[in-house]
């Protein structure tokens, strides 16, 4: 069963034919790698939706932490030193990953979720704008 | 507590800072101390009072603290050139004419002798006077408030009869009560805080002379006249 690739057009065509022949109006298959939905509509074209997730479900989409306003990007927990922390590393939701510096003011950048900090997307001390990506975190439950 | 060491420090006399000419020195960058030349007397203090009135009105002054024939002027910011400030102060001193402050008269009822008069016997020995004589000399004199300082509301009183001058103790009393009537060198005063004190106690005054919640917290002001009135003599 698991050997069948539901995203293969040949497989879908085969299933569609089989469903039509059987007089069944539709089919929905959900599997860890994605979802297949076939709706047979009499007199119209058959609708086929394939949704695929590229990874197994145990790994979810990375989250990008963005700049809440314009400022200079200062990675690192300490405002005293910009010593680069090693990547990737695991972080907890409350961890401060860095700061946005505006003049003498520092806006802490909080991870906001537990996970693996995989990427730093801006250079230290770079001037970033509102919404610019700063970090990438793979969330972990 | 460190404060106690300076407590009521003043009066073992006293080398005038400069003969003939006033002297100005700095404390930190914002404060300047002008010291009057000459004797420690009412004439010099009257000129300090006049100087105080002038300097108080300067726009760049944060606070002034008149002392014993001297004045500390605290400025709002550090001057670029301190010599200018020194010159201004010396000029103001040169122009300061003796004034007499129209002070009020304060009568302080005193319980002479008794449990608080711990240093009265030593003073009698030093002065070679009887306790009755010491008490009489103390309460018959009229005193002027030269300045306040050292403790909230504490007035340095000038006018003590030289027969009952008594140097500060080298080892202070550790816990002298607030209200003790004391002699320190050539001055007298009333202790405003309970604590270590190097002055010599000869009696006790109930009168409250400092109230931080009052619009005028200190009863005494420079220029006031003070009389000690014997409420009770317990010898």
């Amino acid at each position, binding site marked *: 069963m698991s050997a069948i690739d539901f995203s293969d057009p040949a497989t879908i065509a085969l299933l569609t034919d089989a469903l039509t022949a059987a007089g069944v109006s539709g089919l929905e298959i959900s599997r860890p790698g994605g979802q297949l939905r076939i709706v047979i509509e009499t007199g119209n074209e058959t609708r086929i939706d394939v949704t695929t997730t590229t990874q197994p479900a145990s790994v979810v989409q990375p989250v990008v932490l963005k700049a809440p306003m314009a400022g200079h990007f200062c990675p690192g927990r300490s*405002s005293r030193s910009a010593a680069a922390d090693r990547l990737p590393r695991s972080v907890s939701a409350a961890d401060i990953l860095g700061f946005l510096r505006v003049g003498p003011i520092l806006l802490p950048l909080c991870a906001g979720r537990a996970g693996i900090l995989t990427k730093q997307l801006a250079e230290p001390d770079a001037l970033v704008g509102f919404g610019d990506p700063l970090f990438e975190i793979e969330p972990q439950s | 507590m*460190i404060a106690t060491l300076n407590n009521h420090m003043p009066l073992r006399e006293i080398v005038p800072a400069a003969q003939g000419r006033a002297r100005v020195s700095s404390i930190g960058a914002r404060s300047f101390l002008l010291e009057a030349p000459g004797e420690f007397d009412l004439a010099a203090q009257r000129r300090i009072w006049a100087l105080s009135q002038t300097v108080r009105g300067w726009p760049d002054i*944060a606070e002034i603290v*008149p002392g*014993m024939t001297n004045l500390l002027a605290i400025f709002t910011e550090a001057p670029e050139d301190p010599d200018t400030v020194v010159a201004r102060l010396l000029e103001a001193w040169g122009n300061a004419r003796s004034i007499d402050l129209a002070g009020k008269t304060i009568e302080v009822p005193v319980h002479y002798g008794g449990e608080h008069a711990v240093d009265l016997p030593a003073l009698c020995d030093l002065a070679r006077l009887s306790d009755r004589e010491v008490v009489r000399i103390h309460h018959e004199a009229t005193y002027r408030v030269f300045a306040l300082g*050292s403790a909230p509301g504490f007035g340095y009183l000038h006018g003590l009869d030289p027969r009952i001058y008594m140097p500060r103790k080298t080892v202070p009393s550790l816990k002298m009560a607030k209200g003790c009537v004391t002699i320190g060198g050539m001055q007298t005063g009333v202790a405003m805080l309970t604590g270590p004190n190097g002055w010599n106690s000869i009696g006790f005054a109930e009168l409250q002379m400092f109230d*931080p919640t009052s619009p005028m917290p200190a009863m005494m002001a420079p220029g006031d006249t003070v009389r000690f009135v014997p409420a009770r003599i317990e010898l």
Partner: protein
Amino acid sequence: MIEIVETGPFNTVQDLGRPGYRDIGVSASGAMDPFAVRIGNILVGNEEGAAGIEVQTFPFSLRFDRRTVFAVTGADGDPILDALELLPWCAYTAEAGQVLQLKHPPTLARAYVCIGGGLDVPSVMGSRSTSLRGSFGGNAGRPLVKGDRIALGKSADIAPVPASGLAVIEPAVALRDVFPDLVDGTLPVRALPGGEHALFPDDGDAFWSQTWKISSRSDRTGYRLSGEPIKPTASIEMRSHGIVPGVIQVPPGGEPIVQMSDANTAGGYPKIAGVIECDLWRLGQARIGSRIRFVRSTHAEARAVEQAVARYVEDVRTTSEMVKRALRAMA
């Protein structure tokens, strides 16, 4: 309302002090590190001079009885809100019931808890500072004890503190060009020669060249310094005169005393020097047992430092308001 949950001795309510009453014998008191109080108050949206808590003995903790904005400034080390480690020099919002704890700082002496709205203790002679010697001001004129409950003023802040906090580049870092760092663990403290400097031999060399240790007999009133005693060439006695924090007096024993925030208003010991006002906060953060060295300064240098401090404070004020407004607009 806040409630003191644990405290050591000598932690007090302080603001920027009670100047203006030295002429009636009242010490100015106020925070030993006024710089930290000013910046902390700006971060939480207060006037610079609002009253906070000076913590000089640890651990210290307090509970908030309602949602409250606060910042811990001054000392190094991370404050803890419930189990969460926070940043110093950063304003946060605590929820009702949360407990803020301060542990012993790694290197510095005094932490300041600044609270949105300030501590609403009665103002006595223009200040909410505690006068320990006069037993008035602050919280009933005495140090805080466990169980004390203190009302808070109404916060007038223009915009809320961001959820992740609002921090500042602390003065020692932002102004490192203005405030020289420790040299071999010794804090340089700038001072100007005082009225009796000329009485000390060799242009005061013994005073300026040696490293002094802050002795254990030091407190908010003054620091006694341990070292090789220094003696004037002539013994003189001074008439009692006004003094201010920073004055360095030499008592007969020869070990100098630096008067600090609770400085007496009058003194009579020879004054060898006076610390420039803008360096007093650094001395206020120097611990008992630590080492200091005096560096001869000038009025012009002191003025330049004052101006740098004023620029930084103004920058923190305007930028923090701008950042809060911008974040509110984008939220």
